[in-house]
């Protein structure tokens, strides 16, 4: 099976753009009529739906950001009757307040359609066994891959995260052919298999990995192939646009962003101007048919470029390069997005601490470690070792609850952490991707 939906995936570029324009026009009209938020935004920008006369006119529309979701927490951006919602996902936000995304039945369908097309482009088909080792739950990774996998006809194993030896046993016993998880977790699985005396290349049927939710590199792709014989594909998505959606195809040269589902732009992060293909900037997407929470020109914050030229696989949708950083200070720790501001916000809840902190990110083996150095207030001192250890654990618990990722905490004396006059540089990221 070369394509999941051949007609639309190989639609000539001119026709695809015509389709994108039509969809965009319908979307803008609908939002102008139904969304107080976007109506006001368009008015403030002086744009009417009738001003959108060509695909290039999209650049006139106001952009959206994560703060728009946060400021409209939990569901003020929902644009359909609430009883039409079939699901919520929730991700951690920038200041401790989470962001909520909602889905109608069609939204879930469209998301699954994107994932199904992507999985087929990775070479999967009926008869394949896809082990989803992304987290199931509020995080979109698990259910996103699950629905897409079932839609295109693979057998799905909802393994979720953790219990690595069990994952290897499932790969052996259920003859798993593909695993979807974070790249660092996949490298961890390779190590676990070795410890169990399992040679992935010889003893298992695993040949494909769908890896995403955190930055990784071509050298990691090579390493994975050398160590396990597995071909690793990159998957892109974020909860605001639905979840993980788009992968690179068999060419392993950029992720195809299905043109009938999403309209992709690269913006200059400073000026907001649209940049031509080949130039690096802020990835910005419009999900053309989203019903519950439509996202128009959503500035995702990842830095990448649109790749020039046609892909030999025959798909006409534009491709984006690997993500090459962020325009903001968002960190990805073990697949979870972490904003330093959220750490700051969480630490405010611990009265024994000053407002100063430092984050140190390291990668020991395949997994990320986050160390948060916090400063004790003078009156927080106690002679009791148990009291101090208790405080340390309480800070660790507070951070884990707020960030959904565990961190080690180091207690430091007052005034021992750096003070910043200008923009604070509280993050030391020692990882090499």
């Amino acid at each position, binding site marked *: 099976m070369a394509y999941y939906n051949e007609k639309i995936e190989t639609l000539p570029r001119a026709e695809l753009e015509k389709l994108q324009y039509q969809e965009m026009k319908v979307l803008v009209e609908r939002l102008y009529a139904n969304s107080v938020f976007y109506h006001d935004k368009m008015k403030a920008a002086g744009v009417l739906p009738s001003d959108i006369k060509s695909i290039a006119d999209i650049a006139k529309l106001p952009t959206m950001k994560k703060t728009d979701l946060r400021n409209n927490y939990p569901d003020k951006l929902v644009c359909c009757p609430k009883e039409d919602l079939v699901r919520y996902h929730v991700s951690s936000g920038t200041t401790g307040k989470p962001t909520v995304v909602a889905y109608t039945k069609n939204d879930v369908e469209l998301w699954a359609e994107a994932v199904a097309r992507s999985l087929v482009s990775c070479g999967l088909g009926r008869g394949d066994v896809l082990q989803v080792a992304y987290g199931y739950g509020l995080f979109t990774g698990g259910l996103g891959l699950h629905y897409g996998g079932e839609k295109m006809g693979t057998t799905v194993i909802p393994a979720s995260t953790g219990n690595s030896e069990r994952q290897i046993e499932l790969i052996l016993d259920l003859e798993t052919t593909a695993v979807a998880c974070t790249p660092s977790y996949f490298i961890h699985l390779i190590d676990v298999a070795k410890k169990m005396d399992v040679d992935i290349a010889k003893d298992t049927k695993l040949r494909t990995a769908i890896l995403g939710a955190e930055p990784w590199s071509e050298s990691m792709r090579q390493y994975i192939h050398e160590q396990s014989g597995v071909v690793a594909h990159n998957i892109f998505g974020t909860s605001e646009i639905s979840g993980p959606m788009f992968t690179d195809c068999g060419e392993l040269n950029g992720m195809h962003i299905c043109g009938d589902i999403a309209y992709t732009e690269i913006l200059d992060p400073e000026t907001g101007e649209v940049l031509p293909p080949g130039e690096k900037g802020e990835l910005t997407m419009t999900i053309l048919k989203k019903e519950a929470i439509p996202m128009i020109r959503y500035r995702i914050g990842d830095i990448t470029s649109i790749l020039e030229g046609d892909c030999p696989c025959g798909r006409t949708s534009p491709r984006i390069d690997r993500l090459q950083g962020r325009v903001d200070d968002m960190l990805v720790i073990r697949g979870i997005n972490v904003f330093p501001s959220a750490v700051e916000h969480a630490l405010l809840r611990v009265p024994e601490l000053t407002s100063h902190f430092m984050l140190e990110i390291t990668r020991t083996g395949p997994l990320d470690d986050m160390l948060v150095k916090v400063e*004790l207030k*003078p009156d*927080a*001192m*106690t*002679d009791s*070792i148990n009291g*101090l*250890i208790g405080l*340390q654990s309480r800070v660790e618990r507070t951070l884990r609850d707020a960030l959904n990722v565990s961190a080690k905490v*180091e*207690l*430091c*004396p*007052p*005034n*021992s952490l750096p003070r910043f006059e200008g923009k604070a540089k509280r993050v030391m990221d020692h990882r090499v991707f």
Partner: protein
Amino acid sequence: MTSEYRIKQLSIFAPNTPGTLAEIAKIFLDNEVNISAFCIAEANNFGVVRAVVDKPDAVFAAFEKKNYLLKFTDVVAVKMSDVPGGLYDVASKFGAAGLNIEYAYASRSTTTPTLVVYVSNTNISLEAAVEKILASGLVLVRAAEMRI
């Protein structure tokens, strides 16, 4: 007067990095403070240095000036005999008096061996503990003696 046996121990928060103890010791030196008894308790990536010294108030301020986290804790110092059974004699009398030793560390300063003890019974005041210790026949070091 039981309060004369109340000894102000310094508990100093110490990050677990090379050179920290030397820095702490230098502050004692610079303030001409003599350490009678001392120990380090270690936890996750930090330690607490506990010390009984001759000029606790003066050195407390010196540490604070250098941004150290520290606290006074009331302890007692019991004289021990420097013979086999010396510790048993002290420990068994504490036990018989119902006093819980949370932590203790020994010192040979002030001519005889001494055991610095932190009593952690929440329902017994330090004064009451001192009375019990004296009643058991043990000899306590006066705070003034620690400062010689």
